[in-house]
């Protein structure tokens, strides 16, 4: 039997939106709830996980959005029968120590510099985050423009000349390397990668003690997800797959919440690696921007990249734009550590893959 009987659980994560904070406004409260959950995987198997929910407990792993410097209170209710915690690695003060079963914990902190962050349960690391307790936090920069006036996803004070030059190269100038629209805030996709070991999930469900050091030795992932989805589901998910015309650059926020390393590989365009993190989870803005088709995404890595939406550069000039082959051109993104393309030991490519769509060779706005 190779068909799934039910829909997967990982619907597009709705966002918790930022508000404009001033010195007078109190902290904005963001509520998250930890719930034990049965999760259906791509091949129909059900596993136990713990999940952070937002929005009246209906949205799994909500993307939390804030504006840089905004005062936030994260309030976590623990509806699971064991202790849990909260952390936002690389962000001072954004930690809630163990919350007892049925309890509520809080942390108040200022939203960090513009960029992509990962929230998680740090208990028995990496055990609790591998059983599902993680999500993405996006900070929108207060001042974000390059000296040339282009918008970026990063704080102006942290911008490097190299990253500024990339965003300055996107625009209507005929000589621009990425001729077309400038990058616009919000034109982005989040790609949250993780791995699932059903044996570890079963241990959690049976409330067996989880020892982080032992999990590091024994973790044997059999399912691989992007935004909670795998393979066919991830490829059909509008919130996951980038779409656009030539000249509409898009930001990819790539995050690895798991323990295994990934090697995301994109077809059709190379991407520009803009940011990363150091060993303590602190943001690094690159001062040497490398164009890649494959990037290294270690455990807890967070890398922002620009997908330029340029014409696929290796189509013969005499065949561009194609006359016979129809748009959209569609290109895979998948992890090249190919074991991550399986589900339950087979089912290639029902793992960490999606695709992106190039809708046409010119933007509709140009067609008047």
């Amino acid at each position, binding site marked *: *039997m*190779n068909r*799934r009987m039910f829909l997967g659980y990982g619907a597009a994560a709705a966002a918790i939106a930022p508000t404009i904070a001033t010195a007078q406004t109190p902290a904005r409260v963001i509520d998250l709830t930890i719930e034990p959950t049965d999760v259906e995987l791509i*091949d129909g198997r059900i596993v136990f996980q713990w999940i952070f929910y937002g929005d009246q407990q209906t949205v799994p792993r909500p993307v939390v959005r804030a504006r840089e410097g905004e005062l936030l209170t994260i309030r976590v209710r623990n509806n699971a029968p064991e202790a849990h915690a909260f952390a936002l690695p690389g962000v001072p003060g954004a930690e809630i120590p163990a919350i007892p079963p049925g309890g509520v914990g809080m942390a108040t902190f200022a939203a960090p510099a513009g960029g992509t962050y990962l929230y998680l349960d740090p208990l028995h690391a990496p055990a609790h985050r591998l059983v599902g307790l993680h999500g993405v936090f996006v900070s929108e920069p207060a001042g974000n423009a390059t000296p040339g006036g282009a918008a970026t996803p990063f704080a102006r004070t942290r911008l490097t000349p190299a*990253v500024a*030059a*990339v965003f300055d190269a996107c625009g209507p100038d005929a000589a621009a*390397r990425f001729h077309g629209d400038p990058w616009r805030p919000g034109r982005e996709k989040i790609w949250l990668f993780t791995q699932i070991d059903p044996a570890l999930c079963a241990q959690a469900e049976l409330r067996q003690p989880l020892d982080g050091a032992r999990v*590091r030795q024994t973790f*044997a*992932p*059999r399912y691989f997800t992007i935004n909670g989805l795998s*393979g*066919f589901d991830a490829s*059909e998910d509008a919130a996951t797959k980038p779409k656009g015309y030539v000249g509409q650059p898009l930001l990819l926020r790539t995050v690895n919440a798991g*323990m*295994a*390393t*990934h*090697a995301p590989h994109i*077809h*059709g*365009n*190379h991407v*520009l690696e803009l940011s990363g993190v150091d060993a303590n989870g602190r943001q690094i803005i690159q001062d*040497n*921007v*490398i*164009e*890649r*088709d*494959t990037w*290294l995404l270690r455990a807890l890595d967070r890398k922002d990249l620009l997908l330029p939406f340029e014409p*696929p*550069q290796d*189509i*013969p*000039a*005499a*065949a561009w734009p*194609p*006359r*016979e*082959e*129809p748009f959209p*051109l*569609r*290109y*895979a993104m998948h992890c*090249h*550590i*190919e*074991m991550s393309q399986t589900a*339950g*030991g*087979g*089912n*290639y*490519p*029902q793992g960490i893959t999606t695709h992106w769509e190039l809708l046409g060779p010119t933007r509709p706005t140009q067609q008047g």
Partner: protein
Amino acid sequence: MADIDFTRTGVSGEATYDNFSCNVWSENPPTPDRVPADITFERQVYSSGRVTMPDGRRVEMWGFRDPLSSGADGDKPFPSPLIRVRQGQVVHTILRSGKATHTIHHHGLDPSTFNDGVGHLSFEVSADYTYQFSPHSPGTYFYHCHKNTVLHFEMGMYGPLIVDPPEGPGTLFSGGPRYDVEAIWAIDDVDPTWRTLNADAGLCGEDARLDRFRPHYFLISGVPAPRTLTDPRVVVRARAGQAVLLRLINASYSVLRMTFGLDATVFGVDGRGLGRPNSPWSRPIPIPAGRVLEMSPAQRIDVIVRPTRTGTFPVRMVFHDWVTDAIQNAGQGVAETRIIVS
């Protein structure tokens, strides 16, 4: 105009759970938007190749052979034969699949969807198909089968692909560094227990254990370690004062950490020259002797070393497990070779 029914492919056909994995489009269409080729390659699939490992075990390999060659590469070469082209040429690669379905993905090149070799977005090839592309950026690439890739790539279905600038070999990219000596190191790891599987293993839902990769052999350009220390297919010989280009291709499923016994500089990544005119945001990266250079699976890195004195300089590649980060094969996952400068 080519007569192509795109609805019989992933381009215009309806995507379903079934045709994503178990029952992928299988076709042999003409090439859309075909233009005359400047250079044409043929690649014919073989199975039941063998590499003899240092412990005497003969491990099965699959790959591509060149039916146009006079046998210089042998009947079942591993890795598959080099595709070497010039920037701006129109290239046709004719795949001849043989008994089963396969594809060719020219990894790192950005062609149209139909020419990209991904079955669920286009089609797998049951007989033959002519892939078309025209490389615009000189550097190091590779090509590989993209069907049941987890298995077919591990079985050896890949070969190097090099794009030279218009000036030809000897220059990495126009305006970039020149080199006198060149080595292509395709770095791989082999799990002998996967050799009993058939080409479609796992595709229709059975547990083929393709999530558990336990490599036992570590190879550079088809030569298993420790023969990599002496085999002339791997060992580099140069004279003091020469520039040596090392084209590194991580064709393994391990995170590679490598060190060089002499100072090195990265001049290219994934077929893109660093510091070239249209990439002012990048610059070459110095790698002092002994510093670790990390390389993810499927990345390519172009490194140049310029030995100034005679001697033997070690190059060490350490293979790390993607989940635990431990050195593969209980600490034995290492391949070493040498640069001998006279």
